[in-house]
Each structure stands twice: as structure tokens, then as C-alpha cells.
């Protein structure tokens, strides 16, 4: 029997309300109900990290949380990083360092690193590699992603 619920989630600073089936993942709710298609779903099994969003300050897999479980929580998606046309320093650094190719994994890396760099202003390369160990990229070979993260850390520390 289908069970539907009204839920309200604060997404990128704005309360958003919708009526969802209880079996829908948060990732699906963000994409299909709120049309925030920046969050990508890859494996949908918790392995690839493409679907990472920040919930109440912590990065999580949006394919492994039900939309109804996010009711009342604050969610930041990749759409919440830039301010209008101004890219976030992490996005800027990905662009400058060629930190992406096909871009499928990118939203997950950006949200993961956003949360990591907010809490670690002076990370080592090793710490960055550890922080992104739950995100898979099939294109870049990771080196440029790590370079971008190191660059972004410097910019964020200075600002």
C-alpha cells in the first residue's frame, strides 16, 4: 500500500514542502520534486558518492536516506554553493585545475569538499584524499581534484 506524506525540508536556505511517497530517497525527492537536478544519482547503493548532499552540516548519501527522514532538516545541495553567478571558491578551483571531465561525479565531490573545507582550513594532501575516499571518479584520475581542493583551501583560508 502506498503511503504518502507531506514533508518540509530547508533546501539551500529555503523551506520547501512537498507530498512524497515514503519509499522515495532524498536524492529522488531533490531531483524529481524540487527539480534540483544538480544532485546526481549513480550507483544508488551508497558506494559512488555522486549523490552526496550536506544534511545538518554533515555530508551524507542522499540515495541512502529516505525523503521522509529528511523532514525538518537542513539540506545543502550543489546548487546552494554559488551565489548567483559567483562560483564558490571550490567550484572556481575545479574549473581552474580541470578537476572535472564528464562531470557526473562533480556535484558529489563539491558538496563533500565544501563540508570538509568548512571544518579544515589547512588540510594536507593526505587529509584531502581521505575526505574524498567515498567519492568515485572514472575520468580524472583524482590528481586534479586534489589540486583543486588544495587551491580552494588556500582561497577559503584567505577570505
Amino acid at each position, binding site marked *: *500500500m*502506498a*503511503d504518502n*506524506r507531506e514533508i518540509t525540508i530547508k533546501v539551500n536556505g529555503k523551506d520547501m514542502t512537498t507530498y512524497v*511517497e*515514503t*519509499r522515495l*530517497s532524498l536524492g529522488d525527492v531533490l531531483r524529481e520534486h524540487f527539480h534540483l537536478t544538480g544532485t546526481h544519482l549513480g550507483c*544508488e*547503493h*551508497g*558506494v559512488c*558518492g555522486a549523490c*552526496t548532499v550536506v544534511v545538518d552540516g*554533515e*555530508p*551524507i*548519501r542522499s*540515495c*541512502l*536516506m*529516505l525523503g*521522509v*527522514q529528511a523532514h525538518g532538516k537542513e539540506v545543502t545541495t550543489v546548487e546552494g554553493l554559488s551565489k548567483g553567478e559567483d562560483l564558490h571558491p571550490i567550484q572556481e578551483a575545479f574549473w581552474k585545475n580541470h578537476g572535472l571531465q564528464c562531470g557526473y561525479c562533480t556535484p558529489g565531490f563539491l558538496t*563533500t569538499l565544501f563540508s*570538509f573545507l568548512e571544518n579544515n582550513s589547512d588540510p594536507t594532501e593526505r587529509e584531502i584524499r581521505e*575526505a574524498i*575516499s*567515498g*567519492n568515485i571518479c572514472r575520468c580524472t584520475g583524482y590528481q586534479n581534484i586534489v589540486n583543486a581542493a588544495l587551491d580552494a583551501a588556500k582561497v577559503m583560508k584567505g577570505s
Partner: protein
Amino acid sequence: MRPFEFIKPDSEASAIELLGKLSPNVRILAGGTDYLVDLKHTADVPKTVMDISRLPELKGIDEVDDGLRIGAGVTHTEIMQNPLIKKYAPAMIHAAHTIGAVQTRNLGTIGGNLVTCVPSMDSGPTLVALDAEVNIVGKDGTRRISLTDLFVGPRKTSLKSNELLTEIIIPKRSLGKPANFYKFGLRKGQALALVNAASSLWIKGGCFKDLRISIGAVAPVVIRCLKAEKYLEGKKIDEKLVKEAGNIAVTEAKPIDDFRASQSYRNDLIAVLVTRTINAAIDLADKD
């Protein structure tokens, strides 16, 4: 995923009541990092899914009369950051750190890890080596069992469908006990353990005391290596004896042969990991 009814009680008492009323057609959801993956694969979806991830009673890590109490709903990230765990059971921090990646540790709970009961669970060996016990609550009250009695088989525990695992207790005698955990997987990030192991011990007059050895991923459940423990108990610290204990531990396991690793490779790993964890615990111990 097939449809289900979703409920989210706001207290432990109402969760127990609902479990009593709805079992066996209800399943518990904590962090969802095991169970939501299962639900995506199966047609066997329960009528009701009960979310316990926000129950306040299952949260928190506190010093209690008989030891250290860890709420079943505590996440792996919370374990890694907790000062009491750091003080009394730091090997648990290392074990938690090896679980998945940051996004999984932020959601996944210690209770969920134990109840899923896969042989490779990474929180099992350290807790077994520290003689951990668990509190289980059902409509007829609370029962306390040793953690090893929770484990019945692969993905099978002694919990009844109307019971909730509420907390893990590390007994007072194990607080601050020198212990070490080691996981060996095929990659550093997000890999299942081929073998994992933990040992804990005291040293009295240069001899092993209350030695515990536990290994995972090499038997239907996480096990204690009783023969290896007995072999060393009371003996003088000696590298050769520790190595022999590693060999004895191999005889107590029944590792599988699969695409990840052969049985003989896993056997070699058992001997090495048991030896290493004992030696690391010896390094941590006061030697009087």
C-alpha cells in the same frame, strides 16, 4: 523499492509498544546504510518501516555504574569524535574509522552494524575483545546478553522481531584496557575486510592477563579465539609465543574461498593480524 508504511516514534517506549503491536510485519530503520540497500533489492518489503534514527534514548555515550554505555543509535562519526571513547576504548575509534567513507559513517550506527551481523562487520572484533554486552528491550522488559550471544549466523542475530537493541555496555573491567584493531581489505577506502582482528590484554608481572582475541570475516560470525587466548594466558611475554598464538587462531576459523581471496590467503592473514594486534596491545600496556 516497493511501497511501505513509514512510522517514526518519538520515544523508546513508544517504539517498543509499536514493535509489540506490529511485529512481525515491521522492520527497524536506523541509519539505513545497510537496510535501505537491502530494500532496493528485495520484494520482501515489510508492511511498516519504523525509523528509530532520532530516538533520544538511543543516543549518547556515558559513563555509568557498570562501565561505558554507548547508545545503539550512535553513529560511527560520533564514536570517532567522542572523548570518553578516546579515554577508555580508543581502539574503537580506529575500528570506526575503517567503516565505509565519511558519508556512510555520518549515517551508519553502531547498533545497525551489530544487528546486520555480517561476518566482516568492523565494530565487532574490538567490542568482543572488550567483553562488551548489549541491552535488548522488548515488551516484556530488558535483557542483558554478552555481545557474542547476539551473533547467531551470517545476517542472523538472537533479537526477536519485537525487540530493540538499545545500548552497548563496555564493562568497567575493560575500560582503558590496552587493545588494538586491525582491518585488512583490498583497498584503503570503502573495502570489506578480508580479515579483521582485535586483541586486548593486561600485563601482570610480565605475563599475559585476561587476554582476548577476536577475529571477523573468517567464520559465520565474529568469533573469539579461545584456544589462542588460553595458550598465552599467564605466560611470560615472548614474541615466539605470540606468533604461535597466531597459528593457533587459524585453526579456530573457517574462512571462505571466494573471488576476493583464497582460503589459504585468508588463513595467512589471520595469523599475521592476530600477532600484530597482540603485539600492538603489548606496546600500549604498562609493564610492571
